[in-house]
């Protein structure tokens, strides 16, 4: 199990790292899907099968598909403009250092506190559902409202672009 855990975790981290350094958005998305599937495996190993399934279906599936749609929509020649010098060390060093400090802090917190022993137990979908529709019912309602707002907002924002600006683009081509 440990081996599997490390392989999956490393895979997730590495492919996420590669994803952010891609020039082509489709390539980045593919790496990201690998990363999500790797994380899904880690979830499963940590005893959260339901979350693992959702990670694959929703994240690697639905959300990434949204990205793919958008990338397809904007598939204009020359859209992948040059982020000039973006992968030079100078542009990279600042954010990387900041992130590094954050990671060091997290690691420090994790290993400075004594680790007890906790047996890993499986928490199955049934338990999650009971919790979700029991004490968390209100949160679920709020999440549904957020999703509705997202739906309406996205429709409203993208609606006019699709008709008016879309025609403009046609004109360009």
């Amino acid at each position, binding site marked *: 199990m440990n081996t599997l855990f490390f392989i999956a975790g490393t895979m997730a981290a590495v492919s996420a790292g590669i994803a952010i350094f891609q020039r082509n958005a489709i390539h980045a998305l593919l790496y990201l899907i690998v990363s999500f599937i790797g994380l899904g495996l880690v979830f499963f190993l940590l005893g959260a099968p339901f979350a693992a399934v959702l990670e694959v279906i929703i994240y690697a599936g639905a959300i990434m598909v949204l990205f793919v749609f958008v990338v397809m929509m904007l598939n204009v020649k020359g859209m992948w403009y040059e982020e000039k010098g973006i992968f030079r060390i100078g542009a990279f060093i*600042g954010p990387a250092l*900041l992130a590094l*400090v*954050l990671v060091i*802090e*997290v690691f*420090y917190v994790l290993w400075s506190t004594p680790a007890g022993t906790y047996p890993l137990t499986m928490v199955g979908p049934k338990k999650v559902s009971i919790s979700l529709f029991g004490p968390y019912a209100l949160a679920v309602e709020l999440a549904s409202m957020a999703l509705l707002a997202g739906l309406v907002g996205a429709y409203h924002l993208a609606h006019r672009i699709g008709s008016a600006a879309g025609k403009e683009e046609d004109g360009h081509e």
Partner: protein
Amino acid sequence: MLEMLWLIPAFPFLGFAFLILAGARLPQRLKALIGAGTVAASAVAATIVAVRFIASPPEGSVYVERLWNWMHTGNFNPAVALYLDPLSVVMVLVVTWVGFLILLYSTYFMAGDDGFGRFFAYMDLFVGFMLILVLADNFLLLYLGWEGVGLCSYLLIGFWYKEEENVRAALKAFIVTRIGDAALAVGLFLIYYNLDTLNIQEAAAHAPEEWLIGSLAANAAAALLLGGALGKSAQLPLQTWLPDAMAGPTPTSALIHAATMVTAGVYLIARCHTFFVIAPAVQTAVAITGAFTLLVAGSSALVQRDIKRILAYSTISQVGYMFLALGVGAWAASVFHFMTHAFFKALLFLCAGLVIKALDNEHDIFNMGGMKRKLPFVFWTFLIGSASLSAVPFVTGGFFSKDLILFQTWIYPLGGLHLFIAGLIGSFLTSIYSFRILFIVFYGEAGQEVERVKSRAATTSLTALTILSIVGGYIEIPRPLGNVTIFSDFLKPVLPEASPAITGTGTFIIFLVVSIICSLGGIYAAYILFIIKRNQVESLATGVPGNVLHRFLFTGWGFDLIYDVLIVRPFVYLTRLNRGDIFDLFYRAIEFFCGAVYGFVRTTQTGNVRWYAAAVAFGAVVFIGFVMFL
């Protein structure tokens, strides 16, 4: 029946609310009906209550109607309670009936004015507040009414607010009376602080127990109450607002600035007379103030040209008589004079209003003349009003009330010969100036064409006030003349009578003769001066000493000038010095600091999303580090 007491103030407030909220859309007749009708209802209610009160007086001649508790904090729980005793019965009857008659007259006088509904609304509000003032059970409620009538006075003086002068007059009235109101407020604080109650009766009962006669606290409390009364009643030295207050519509002048509101100070002192009894120095000050006021105002009235200003000075002077009476302890006489004064002064103002209206808003009496033939009805009513004001003996209300004051001033221990003589001189002046108006306005050659009064409302109102001016005096006739003491007997439970220092019928006869000589002599003097030798009088005023004297009196003894030099100009000078406002520097510094910080923080708003994200991340790193290592 006494339970309907609360209806008396409720009606006018109802009328006010209705006119203010829905008045704009109503036809004029309906507005008049609501405006005058609610006060009429109030007057009827007041009459029923009064009849009931007189027919079967409640225990101790006091009826308290507790409506609700106003507030409740610790020991301090003033109630909204109405207090009915003989004094408030008199006040309520006068306020409601005179108010109704004046509103009835207003339906004619104000007809066609743009602010018709507004006028009636304000007048209703005024009547309501005045009733609260006179019916209040505690000082707090009294103060509410006190400020309420002040507000209405302000609103009505500035009623024609499109002219700057009127607004100025309204502001002046408001600010000058505010000085007195502030004194009154401080006085109420003092009373509450020392006596631990604001209930008027409790406070009045406790005051003599708590305070020694003539002690500092007693004198301070009485002096502060007097301060409030001086402001509201336009007595020296706060009298300057009243002549300017004539900028308001004439019915307003009649109701507020003659008949009722300006006598609120008299009511206050009569109501709180216990406080003055234990402060003899202040009570003497009341008498002296009254005496001076009546002389200053009476002499100023002699030379005014504006008919309403003459009447305004006359009002100040007559209220001065009431203060004189209060000062010598003739409480009942003072209230009696308040009542007759309300009748004849309202009458005079309403007559003056008709003349002014008939001559198309002409105020200068020297541009009038010959009105006797043009407006005979107004002439006769004005004649009776003037006679009453001049205390023409035996037939007028003013005679009985004013002579009662003068007589008691003479014989009461607190009075004396000097006050009495001041009163007599005032009486002489009163006769001169009141008949001066009559002779100049109604005699002589007629000037312009006039429109006749064809209003039943106005004539009814004038007739009623005329009758009241005459018969109002017969309820109190001195002993040698017939000995009717209905009025003083009625008020006896509230306002005790002092025992005179001088007694004897002989004294009274001497007094009567002197008083009648003064009153009739004044009329005769006016006849000589303004009918027979009018030209000589006018030439006298153009000479140098005459001119100086004339201007001195015309400006009301130059009080406005004194205040201007002593208070207004230094204040304006100070404000000019402080134009930069040094007290604002502190706030400017705050503003500058905020501006500087803003300027700095603004530079972080680069519009670059990644910088914002970086800032958030940096903040997260710092805070996590902070939590970790501390």
